[in-house]
């Protein structure tokens, strides 16, 4: 069996706040195989971005990784000294953020931002780095890159800017690309193009992708596997075909209830009544139980763990052995 590019083991991320410690990520684990596209979905505040941020080691203090480990090709990276981690960022893990309009420094020509990134991670001369930048721009589909390379970000449209951002993320041929809602801020008409581009480029470069999105339609079309997050935990993970066609967790079922197509603009998964609990006030038992149509005895008492059902795993008492009544308090 091949080694996973990325292994997240029991990851826990905490933020100290005035109202006590907030656990944004609570014990999540998953693997990402080379070349695989893992979709990550879940409501706003579920912890998708924080997971990505933790992987590239950019959680802002006082937030911190409070437990677990992150392995890149079998090597732990969550406890590396800052400069060693910096060398991994961009070089081995590329990141694309939601908003191409604000991801590029408005005062730097895009060529300078590209050359700077290339030169940070390679020994290329300035001229060679510029050629590399031109090649990258060509690759992401910027027409006439030679005449565009010295333009400033505001001279590009949103979709073009996201292509530049993608070129920047891929500049050093990373093994893993984390794309955090790469199309949410874009015009609907270019969303599909960008998603297709990400998928094509990552396949060509052999990079694995962690694709964070609200859009189940995008997941269904793009991802190999999907992880569904709720209140800082993964509630269901498995191959896209299984999870989309036969969701098990009641939350996932709710999400799949109305897959917004790319054309109808995601409606932010609000079809499930109620809202996600605040992370400082996560209910006992299963965090989803107050909203769950199928809840029963153990749900408000004991938290279900993510456990296997062939290729997928789900954290729900409907599919596990229910704990003995003695363990449940009345």
């Amino acid at each position, binding site marked *: 069996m091949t080694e996973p590019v990325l292994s997240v083991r029991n990851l826990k991320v905490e933020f100290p706040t005035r109202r006590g410690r907030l656990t944004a990520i609570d014990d999540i684990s998953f693997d990402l195989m080379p070349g695989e596209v893992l979709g990550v979905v879940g409501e706003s505040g579920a912890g998708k971005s924080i997971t990505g941020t933790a992987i590239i080691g950019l959680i802002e203090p006082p937030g911190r990784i409070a437990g677990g480990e992150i392995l890149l090709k079998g090597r732990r990276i969550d406890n590396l000294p800052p400069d060693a981690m910096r060398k991994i*960022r*961009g070089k081995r893990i590329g990141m694309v*953020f939601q908003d191409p309009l604000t991801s590029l420094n*408005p005062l730097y020509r895009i060529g300078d931002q590209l050359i*700077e990134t290339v030169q*940070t991670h390679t020994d290329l001369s300035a001229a060679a780095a510029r050629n590399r930048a031109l090649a990258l721009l060509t690759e992401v589909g910027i027409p006439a890159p030679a005449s565009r390379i010295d333009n400033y970000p505001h001279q590009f449209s949103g979709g073009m800017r996201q292509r530049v951002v993608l070129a920047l993320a891929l500049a050093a041929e990373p093994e893993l690309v984390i794309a955090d809602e790469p199309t949410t801020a874009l015009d609907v008409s270019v969303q599909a193009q960008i998603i297709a581009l990400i998928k094509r480029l990552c396949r060509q470069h052999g990079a694995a992708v962690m694709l964070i999105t609200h859009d189940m339609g995008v997941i269904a079309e793009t991802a190999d596997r999907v992880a569904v997050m709720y209140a800082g935990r993964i509630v269901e993970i498995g191959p896209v075909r299984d999870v989309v066609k036969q969701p098990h967790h009641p939350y996932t079922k709710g999400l799949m209830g109305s897959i917004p197509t790319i054309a109808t603009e995601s409606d932010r998964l609000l079809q499930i009544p109620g809202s996600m609990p605040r992370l400082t006030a996560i209910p006992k038992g299963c965090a989803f139980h107050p909203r769950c149509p199928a809840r029963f005895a153990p749900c408000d008492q004991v938290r279900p763990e993510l456990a296997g059902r062939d290729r997928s795993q789900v954290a729900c008492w409907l599919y596990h052995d229910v704990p003995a009544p003695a363990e449940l308090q009345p």
Partner: protein
Amino acid sequence: MLAFIIRRLLQATLVMAVVALIAFTLFRFVGDPINQMVGIETSLEERAALREALGLNDPVAVQFLRFIWNAVQLNFGISYQFKKPVLDLIAERFPATMELAIVSAIFSMLLGIPMGVYTALRRDAWLSKLFLTLSLVGISLPTFLIGILLIFLFAVTLGVLPSFGRGDTVRLGLWDTGLLTWSGLKALVLPSITLGLFQMTLIMRLVRSEMLEVLRTDYVKFARARGLTNRAVHFGHALKNTMVPVITIAGLQLGSIIAFAIITETVFQWPGMGLMFLRAVQNVDIPIMSAYLLLVAFIFVTVNLIVDLLYVVVDPRIRIDARGA
């Protein structure tokens, strides 16, 4: 770009016209110019003749236009106190004030910017806390008190720096400079610290808050996510973006440094325009007052214009918008 410059020039002209109106009103209506010029023994006929000769009987609009016409030719009239052309008096004092203001501005930026950057990057270091506390003191102490404290410490107690005057100066064409002699430089130290301290704290706080803001932006986050070194992120991306508003404010402050110089010049008996203006106010020397007003307004407007143009050079987005406009 050209349209942008022309628009700015028109605005500047408008501002100057308004200031000229105020200066003219001062000139024309605060006291009777004739009374200020002549002795008590001058006869009524002589006064009337003088009034006619000076054009004070013409319609106000004509007088205003004449005032502007004169001002444009740098003819600000004759000082009541010194009986000399105001232009000559200003030309004598202008270099002293400008040197003081520019040295203060440089001092405030050379210290304020690095301190601001340091306090933004090392938010929890004790030195940052010290800087911030000291800057509070700098902002809340009045200028004259700082001046007097400095004089007490360095001139009276330690006796290392002069407490008043400009020291020796060297004449370069029309410009009397104190920057080329040792005593001139020594004399500049205390006044420019006094004048620049407030600006320095202001710039430090401005740089700090702008930098903290910039450090939170997505492009800084993305720069970090690309693995750029801290140096490239902090002193390349973050600092460059921080400097855009800082240049504006610091530039605009040059105008107020010149205006504030009045107090510092008084404390240090600095032979500049501020001191001259204060004397003029005490003696109701209206030609000097109105000329000073016009000059300071002119400097403000010019600085403003230069800052706007600099802004265009630094920020490519404005370059485009301006071209479109």
